[in-house]
């Protein structure tokens, strides 16, 4: 299934844990340090440096781009570290996140409540993923280097739905299918 940004509720309602989709359009990139700054802005009642309504954040810090390339290697970072910030971002209208690794129960509940989806990209397939990124620019927090806030234009970026709005979890479902007891 090919989905485009911004994400609508209509599309989100169709997505189920384990679905393989591709994403085309604008996505935002931020991770630990940028999210800390987002919270500080929200605490002060200041606007965020981007409008998160309907958008997707990709948890990623790229390696430097070689001349002539839009971005370096660009695979996902581990998402649980952004858990403390996520419910508030969802309250602001964020509709999707791309990372890797499982989210905690609070985030999974917030996804159901705010109708948002968590996707995984393949960790370590960073050179392959870079091929889906056509344009990249830093839009805030430039001094954070690899952790700056970026806007990307992506085309057919392959991801897997980990958590849908119905409580599905691709990691738990996958593990249950292949787990064996010691005497099996």
């Amino acid at each position, binding site marked *: 299934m090919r989905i485009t940004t911004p994400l609508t509720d209509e599309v989100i309602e169709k997505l189920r844990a384990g679905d393989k989709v591709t994403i085309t359009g604008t996505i935002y990139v931020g991770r630990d340090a940028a999210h800390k700054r987002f919270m500080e802005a929200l605490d002060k009642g200041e606007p965020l440096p981007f409008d998160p309504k309907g958008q997707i954040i990709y948890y990623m810090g790229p390696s430097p781009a070689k001349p002539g390339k839009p971005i370096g290697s660009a695979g996902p970072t*581990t998402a649980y570290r952004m858990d403390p910030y996520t419910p508030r971002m969802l309250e602001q209208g964020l509709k999707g996140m791309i990372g890797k690794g499982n989210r905690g129960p609070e985030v999974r509940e917030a996804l159901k409540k705010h109708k948002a989806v968590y996707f995984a990209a*393949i960790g370590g397939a960073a050179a392959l993923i870079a091929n889906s990124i056509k344009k990249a620019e830093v839009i805030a927090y430039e001094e954070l280097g*690899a952790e700056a806030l970026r806007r990307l234009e992506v085309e057919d970026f392959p991801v897997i739905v980990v958590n849908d709005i119905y409580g599905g979890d691709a*990691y738990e479902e996958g593990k249950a299918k*292949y787990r064996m007891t010691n005497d099996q």
Partner: protein
Amino acid sequence: MREISCQEITDTVARLCIEANYYLGEDVLEALRQARESEVSPVGREVLDQILKNADIASREKMPLCQDTGVTVVFLELGQDVHIAGGDLYEAINEGVRKGYQEGYLRKSVVDRPFSARVNTKDNTPAVIHTDIVPGDKLKITVCPKGAGSENMSYLKMLSPAAGRQGVIDFVVDCVDRSGANPCPPVIVGVGIGGTIDQTTLIAKKALLRPVGQPHPDPEVAELEREILERVNKLGIGPQGFGGRVTALAVHVETFPCHIASLPVAVNLQCHSARHKEAIL
């Protein structure tokens, strides 16, 4: 007495930083190919296909296998008969990291003041350097970029000696289980048993340098490795945690004598982007 210059050390470290980040070792590639053949989960096989495709792209395009080009861990085997000339050995290594991470378009992922401001050092230094003094007149340098996804899934437990062999196995398997998809499976499980905690964790990391799947030369340790691997691959986590039977490519155990009252066990997980390159000067 043989002289090795700091300049040669710097240039070698710079080259190894780049090579380790661009080119996956043949032993790792072979282990991934075998995993692809034996994995029963369709999504698991697809993930392994993507990982192998990624290694091919990285090698051809000369770009990092993973954007997390890691903290630079450097192992030195310094011959007793070597004289390091023209500077400070550890400075020369850090200069090599600085050079390699700049010229190789590698990510600078190291911050100072970890507990407060977390200011990026901008050149990926300082490297984490471990030195063994050995007989001879050579200097062997092994550069291992270690990313945080796997490194954050590190564990240490001071078991009671009563826990025994079964306690060790249960602990290691539980560590891999708890880590789930986070360390980017399929992983290589580095295990250290014995020593004092500094030694336990060091040998767990050194265990990751072994060619993938090469058993420990001691048959009793090799049997332990085999048993842990079998249990780990029954967890069902699979490639990237989407479910499957290849959760680990290998388990490498290193041991060291320990105190009569202790049974320390350390687990250092290595992701599928198992990167290390060596040179002998």
